[in-house]
C-alpha cells in the first residue's frame, strides 16, 4: 500500500475503509443482547466483532432465564454513530439473537462491574490500602497477614480509579467481570 502513496485512513480508494466516509467522533455504547441460549451463540457474536473489525471493550454473558433458554450479553463497544448502527444491525441478523438494546442511546442506564484485587504488603502500605478500600466501599473477601483480596462493585471508571490507587500499595493481581447494565426506571426493555 505504501508504494502506492495512499494516505493512511484515506477512504476514496479502498473498499475496506468505507465506514470512515461518514466519520465523526467515536462514541462508547453499551449494548444489551438477548440471545437464545444455544451452543455457539457467544462465538457468533464475538466472530461478528472480529470478522468485521469492530471493537469490544468489555463483554459479559450469563443465562437470565433458564426455562426460556435466554441469555443476556452486555457489550461495551466504541465507534462512530454509523459503525454503532451497523453493529446493531449486524447483531440483529444473527438468527438466535432475539433483541439488541442500545442502552446508551435509549436513555439513562445503570452500569456496574465487579473487580477483585489482590494487594500484598506490610506496615503503612497495608493500612493505607485498607483505608482506601473503605472509602471505595470495597469488601475484604480474603486476608492473610501480608495480603488482602478486595471486592469492589461500581462503574468501570470507579474500578479504574481504585486500581490506580492500589498499584503503589502492592497490587498483585486483578480480575474484573466486565460491565453488566440495565436501563433505569420501571419499563423492561425486553
Amino acid at each position, binding site marked *: *500500500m505504501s508504494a*502506492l*502513496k*495512499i494516505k493512511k485512513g*484515506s*477512504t*476514496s*480508494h*479502498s*473498499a475496506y475503509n*468505507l465506514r470512515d*466516509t*461518514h466519520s465523526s467522533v467515536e462514541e462508547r455504547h453499551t449494548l444489551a443482547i438477548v440471545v*437464545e441460549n444455544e*451452543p*455457539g451463540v457467544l*462465538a*457468533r457474536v464475538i*466472530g461478528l466483532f472480529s*470478522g468485521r473489525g469492530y471493537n469490544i471493550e468489555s463483554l459479559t454473558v450469563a443465562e437470565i432465564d433458564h426455562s426460556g433458554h435466554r441469555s443476556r450479553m452486555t457489550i461495551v463497544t466504541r465507534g462512530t454513530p*454509523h459503525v454503532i*448502527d*451497523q453493529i446493531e*444491525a*449486524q447483531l*440483529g*441478523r*444473527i*438468527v*438466535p439473537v*432475539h433483541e439488541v438494546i442500545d442502552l446508551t442511546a435509549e436513555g439513562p442506564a445503570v452500569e456496574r462491574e465487579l473487580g477483585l484485587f489482590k494487594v500484598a504488603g506490610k506496615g503503612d502500605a497495608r493500612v493505607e490500602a485498607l483505608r482506601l478500600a473503605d472509602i471505595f466501599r470495597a469488601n475484604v473477601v480474603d486476608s492473610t497477614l501480608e495480603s488482602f483480596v478486595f471486592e469492589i462493585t461500581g462503574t468501570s471508571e470507579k474500578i479504574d480509579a481504585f486500581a490506580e490507587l492500589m498499584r503503589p500499595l502492592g497490587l498483585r493481581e486483578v480480575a474484573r467481570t466486565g460491565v453488566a447494565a440495565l436501563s433505569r426506571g420501571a419499563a423492561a426493555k425486553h
Partner: protein
Amino acid sequence: MTRKMAETREMTGAQMVVQSLRDQGVTTIFGYPGGAVLPIYDEIFQQSDIQHILVRHEQAAVHAAEGYARSTGRPGVALVTSGPGATNAVTGLTDALMDSIPIIVLTGQVPTFMIGSDAFQEADTVGITRPCTKHNWLVKETDKLSATIHEAFHVATSGRPGPVLIDIPKDVQFATGTYTPKGSRPSLYQPRLKGDAEAIAALVKAMEKAKKPVFYTGGGVINSGPAASRLLRDLVAATGFPITSTLMGLGAYPASGENWLGMLGMHGLYEANMAMHDCDLMINIGARFDDRITGRIDAFSPRSKKAHIDIDASSINKVIRVDIPILGDVAHVLEDLLAAWTARGGVTDREAVARWWDQIRDWRAIDCLRFEQSGPVIRPQYALSRLEVLTKAHDRYICTEVGQHQMWAAQYLGFDAPNRWMTSGGLGTMGYGFPASIGVQLAHPDALVINVAGEASWLMNMQEMGTAVQYRLPVKQFILNNERLGMVRQWQELLHGERYSHSWSESLPDFVKLAEAFGAKGIRCSDPETLDDAIMEMITHPGPVIFDCLVAKHENCFPMIPSGKAHNEMLLGEASTKGAIGAGGAVMV
C-alpha cells in the same frame, strides 16, 4: 390411532434425514459419500422419492445446489461427509452467503463421543462454517434432528435467503428417535416483510416530484420471488421511469423492456451509470450498494435523494446514506407502494421525466457496446452476440464462470425473465458456472442450459464432466478461450504496466479430446465464418458439449469505471485508457 400419534413416528436419524427432505418437497440432492454419512447413504439407497446426484467434488455439490436454487426459487440441498467433505464445501457456502442463495448443506460428523479427540476425518465444521453460513447447527440428539432440519429450511428461505448447514454425528444417524413433522413447531425466526407505511408515503411523494428518477434494482427482487418481478414491471410501466439493475438482478425487468437502461456498475452500460450519477431520485430495490456499483463513494450520485427497499437492516446505510429507508420484502413493499402511489392519482412530473429521457437517449446514442467483427479472429463480443441471436428463442438458462467472459455475457445476452441467469457476483468464484449448470439442468431437464466460461475458470471444476455424462445432462460449456486469465490480464495491462505476471493459461488441454475422453462431444471453432454453424451444432446435439471457442487473446472488457473513479469518469474503449487510472485505484481490486 390419534392424529398426533400418526404424525410423530419412531425412526433412526438417517431415516429422519430422508423423511424431512421428503416432507420439505425435496426431489433432488447433490452429494458425495464418506464414512460419516454412510447411514444416510444407506437410506437413500432404499428409496426412490429423492434423486441423489453424485458429483465429483463437494464444492461442485454446493454450486450445483446453488444453480438449482437460483433457477427454481426453491432451496437446493447438498450432502457431504465430515472433515474433507465439509471443508470442500466452504467455498460454495461462502458463495451462497454473498449472493443470498438459499441452500441446505448436510454434513456428517464423527460420533458425538469422539468429538474433540482429533478422530479420523474430524473437523470443527460448525466452527469453520459459522462465518460463511446464515446459521448452522450441530445436532447431538436424534430427537432434535428432524425439527432442526425443518427449522434449517425455514431459516434458509426466510428473510434474506442464505446457506445453512447441519452437522450430524454418525451415532445420531444410527440412533432411534421421534420424528417431528414439518410445521409442528412455529419458528422464532420471523423477519418482517411489510414496509413502514410512512416511509412508503415519503417515497410516493418523492416519486411525484422527481425530475430525474431512476430505479436501481438488484438480486433482492429475484430473491423475493416472481410476484416481485411482476410488480416491478407494473411500477416501471405505470411511472415511465428508467430502470437499471445490478449483475445479480438481471431478468427481473426484461432486457427487451422499453425503460431498460442495461446493467450498471464497473462494467455496466454508459447510459445506466450516467443516469445513476445525474439522477435526482434513486430508488434502490433489493440491491446493496456494492463497491462494483458505487465506485468512488464521495462522488456517487452526488445530487440525488435516495430510497432503499431491503429486507436486511444491515444493508441499509451500510455503504451509502439513504434518505428514505424501507425495511421489508420487495414484493410486499412494491405492492403497497403501487397502491399508495395510485391512490394519490398516480402523479409524476411528466414533462421533466420526458426531458430526462431525452438526456438518456443522448447517452444511449454513444452505443457503448458497439464493436466490429473484422479479421479472421473471433472477438468474444461477437461470439456472445451470435450465441444470443441463435439461442434467444429457446427455453434458455445461462450460467457463467468469473472473469471477462462473465461481464460480456451480462452485456451481450438479454434476460427477459427472472431466475434465468446464474452467476457468482459477490464472491466471484471461478469454478462456479459448470457445476451450477448441472444443478440448473436437473431442475429444468428440457431447457437449453449454457455455461459461458473462460478456459481458466472452467478448469477449476472440470471433473464435473463425469457428472454431466453419467446423468446425461446436456449442458453446453461455451468456453471463450483466450488462453489468458483475461480479467487479471486486463487489470495488469491497465494498472501494472503491462507486466503479465502469471496471467496466462499454459499447457491447456485439447478441449475436444477432453470432451471425448469423458464420452461427450467436443467442438472447436476459431473462424468467425463458421461460428454460427458451430453454435447450431452445439445446440442441436442432445448431450453435453464442450465448445472451445478460440477468441482474441488481448481483448479488454469495456465500458469500465476504473476503481477509485466516479460514474461519469467511465472508460469507453482502449483508446481512452492510457493514464486513466491513478495509483490509488489499484488498491481497490
